[in-house]
C-alpha cells in the first residue's frame, strides 16, 4: 500500500521578478509530521499556499490523495484542514456561528459542540469573535481547521507570536493529530519546534530545498561534532586563533564564541586553561549536540532568524 499522501514535483512560483519557489520536490507520508523549516522569505508559505489551493504553481504538479492536480481542487479540500499563518474571522460573528458557517462548507462536518469542546471554547460559543483574546482566536482557527476531521492538516507557522503556554498547546494538538493517524504538514522558522514535532524536515532557503531528512539524520549528516558556546565580551583580539589550537573550528558568532570539536575532553581542558590564563569568565557557557540551527548554519553560513 502506498503510504504517500502528498507528492510535489518541480513546483515553481514566481512573483514578478522574484522566484519564490524554485522547482522543489518532496513527498509526505501518511501519519507523519512533515516540516518546512527555513528563515523568513525562504518560500515556505508560498509552498504551503500552493498546497492549500490558494495559489497555482507556475510549473510542477501535486499528487494529492492519489490524484495528480495542477491546482488543489474542492474535492481535495474536503479532506484537508488548514490553519493559516494570517487570517481573520468576521469580528461581528459569534464563535458558534463561525464554526457552523465553516461546517456548512464540508460534506461531512463534525458537530459544532464537539469542535468547541475540542478547542476549549464551549463557554465562548455566544461571544463575538472580536471579544476573543489572541490565544482564543488561534484555538478557534484550529477548531475550524479540524471541522471536517481532515486526513491532511496544513499548519502555516502555527505558533508564531504565541506565548509559551499557547505554543505548548499547539504542539500537543499536533502530537494528538499524529497519534490519530492524521498527516500534518507545518512550516516554521523555530528550529526547536521542528525538532520537537517533525518526523521529517525540509530545510528551505531562497525558494529551494537545501536539505531533507529526519532532524537526527540532518544533525548527524551536517554536524557530527560537539558545539561549545560562550560569551565573547572581554575576549582578547587573538582569542579565535588561540582557541583553534585545541578545537576543530572556532569562530565569532555575534556576541558569542563558538567552538566545534570531535575531542571534547581535550577541547574543554584547553578552553579552561586559556580562560584562566586570559582571565575570561566564560559567561553563558553551553556544551551541546548539534541541532537544526547548526545544520542551517553549516549549509548557508547564516542563522535561521537572521
Amino acid at each position, binding site marked *: 500500500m502506498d503510504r504517500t499522501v502528498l507528492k510535489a514535483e518541480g513546483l515553481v512560483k514566481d*512573483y514578478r521578478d522574484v522566484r*519564490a519557489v524554485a522547482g522543489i520536490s518532496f513527498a509526505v507520508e501518511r501519519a507523519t509530521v512533515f516540516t518546512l523549516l527555513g528563515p523568513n522569505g525562504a518560500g515556505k508559505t*508560498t509552498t504551503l499556499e500552493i498546497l*492549500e*489551493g*490558494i495559489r497555482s504553481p507556475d510549473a510542477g504538479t501535486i499528487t494529492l490523495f492519489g490524484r495528480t492536480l495542477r491546482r488543489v481542487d*474542492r474535492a481535495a*479540500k*474536503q479532506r*484537508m484542514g*488548514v490553519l*493559516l499563518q*494570517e*487570517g*481573520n*474571522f*468576521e469580528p*461581528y*460573528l459569534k464563535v458558534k*456561528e463561525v464554526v*457552523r*458557517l*465553516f461546517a*456548512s*462548507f*464540508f*460534506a461531512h462536518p463534525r458537530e459544532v459542540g464537539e469542535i468547541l469542546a475540542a478547542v476549549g471554547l464551549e463557554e465562548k460559543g455566544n461571544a*463575538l469573535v472580536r471579544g476573543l483574546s489572541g490565544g482564543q482566536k488561534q484555538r478557534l482557527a484550529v477548531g*475550524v481547521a479540524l471541522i471536517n476531521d481532515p486526513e491532511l492538516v496544513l499548519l502555516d507557522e502555527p505558533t508564531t507570536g504565541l506565548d509559551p503556554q499557547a505554543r505548548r498547546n499547539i504542539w500537543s494538538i499536533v502530537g494528538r493529530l499524529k497519534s490519530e493517524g492524521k498527516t500534518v504538514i507545518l512550516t516554521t522558522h523555530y528550529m526547536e519546534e521542528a525538532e520537537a514535532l517533525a518526523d521529517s524536515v525540509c530545510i528551505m532557503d531562497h525558494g529551494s530545498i537545501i536539505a531533507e531528512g529526519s532532524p537526527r539524520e540532518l544533525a548527524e549528516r551536517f554536524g557530527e561534532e560537539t558545539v561549545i558556546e560562550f560569551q565573547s565580551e572581554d575576549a582578547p583580539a587573538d582569542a579565535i586563533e588561540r582557541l583553534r589550537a585545541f578545537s576543530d573550528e572556532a569562530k565569532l558568532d555575534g556576541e558569542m564564541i563558538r567552538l566545534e570539536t570531535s575531542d571534547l575532553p581535550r577541547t574543554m581542558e584547553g578552553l579552561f586553561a586559556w580562560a584562566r590564563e586570559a582571565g575570561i569568565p566564560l559567561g553563558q557557557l553551553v556544551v551541546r549536540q548539534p541541532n537544526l540551527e547548526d545544520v542551517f548554519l553549516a549549509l548557508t553560513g547564516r542563522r535561521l532568524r537572521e
Partner: protein
Amino acid sequence: MKGILLLSRAHIAISLRERVTLFWFLVFPILLLSILALIFGNTGGEGNVRFDIALVNEDSGDGFSGMIERAFGEMATPAEGGGEGIFSLAIPRSGQDRGAFLEEEMERLSRGGLAAILVIPAGFNDDLIGALTGEERPAVDLYLNRNDPGSRMAGGIIDQVIAGVNREILIRSGRLDPEGEVETKAGWIGDGEERPGYIDFLLPGIVLMGFFTAGLFGVPGTILYSRDVKILRRYWVSPLTVPRYVAGFAIGHIGLCTLQFGAVYTIGRYAFGARLDFARVDVALVLLLSVATFMAFGFLIASIARTPNGGMAIANILNMPMMFLSGLFFPITGLPLFLLALVYVNPVSYLIDSLRAGLGVGTAVMPGSLRLAVPLGWIALSIAVAGMRLRWDVER
C-alpha cells in the same frame, strides 16, 4: 445550498451588529427621509403650502368687511382641525383688545412667525358704499415682512383673494356682468385620484438612495476589507468557491435591502402619510433590478480599487453626480446638454423613472426599452469587469 444560506445570514447579522454599517443602512435613510419630509413636505404630510396670517377687522359693520373676513376664513384651517387650506388664520379672541392683538401679531410678523397681517379699518363698510357712489375708495392695510420670502408669497395670494372680493362686490352692486367675462374651460388629465404630495415624490427616491448607498459603499467596503484583513482567505482554503460566496453575499445583500426598504416605507407611510402602493409585481421587479444594478456597481468599484479606502474614494466620486443627476430627490429639468448626457447614461435615472411611473407618482420620461436595457447593460458590464479584474485574495 446550506453554506450559501448561512453565508447570507452571516452577512445580514454582521451588518446589523456593526454600528457604522447599521447607521448607513438603516438610520441614515430614515433620517434623510424625515428631514426632507419635514422641510419640504410640511409635517401634515399632504404636501400643501400653508401661510400663517392674522386678520383684524376693526370695522363694526358686517357688510363688506364681514365678506372679506369670511373669504379668508373659508381659505383657512379651522383651529379644531379636520379641514385644510392655504391659510392658518389668527383673529382676536372674543373680548380681546384689538389693539393689543395687533401689537402681538406685529411682533410675530417681525420675528418671522407670521406671514402677513391684514387689517380692515374702522368704517370700511360705509366708505365702500360711498365709493360705489363715486367717493374715494377705501383700503385694507396689509403688513408684510420684507425679509421673509414666505411673507412675499402670502402677500401675492392675499392680493388675489382681495381681487376676488372686489369682483364679488362689483357683481353685487350691479357694476359687473359675470356673463360678460372671459370664460375659462378647464380640461383635466389624470385618474381623478388625490394628487400625490412631496412625500410620495420623495419616498421612492429615498428607497433607491438606500439601495444605491448600500451597493456603492457597502459592497466594495465589505469585499475589500474582508480581502485585506484575510477574512476571505479563510474561505478559500475551505471547499467554498468564489461563485458560491458571491451567491451568499448577494442573497444577504438583497435581504438587507429588504429590511431597509421595510423600515423606510413604514416611516414614510405612518409618520409622513405616504400613500404609495409598493405591493405590485412591476414595482417589486424594479426594486429588485435596482438592488442588482447597485450591487453590480459595487463589485465594479471593488474590482477597480486596490484598497478599501480607494473603494470608498471611488464610491464618493460617483455618489453625488449619480444621485443628483437622476431626479432622485429633485426633478431634473432645464439642465445643460452635457449634464443631460450624464443623466442619460446614469442607470439611477431609469430606475427612479420606472419606479415612480410604476407607483403612479409621475409619468415615465425615459423610453420604455431603455429603462430596462440601461440598468441591465450596467449590470453586464460590471460583472464582466469584476469577473476579469476583481482580486479575491491579497497580492504578494
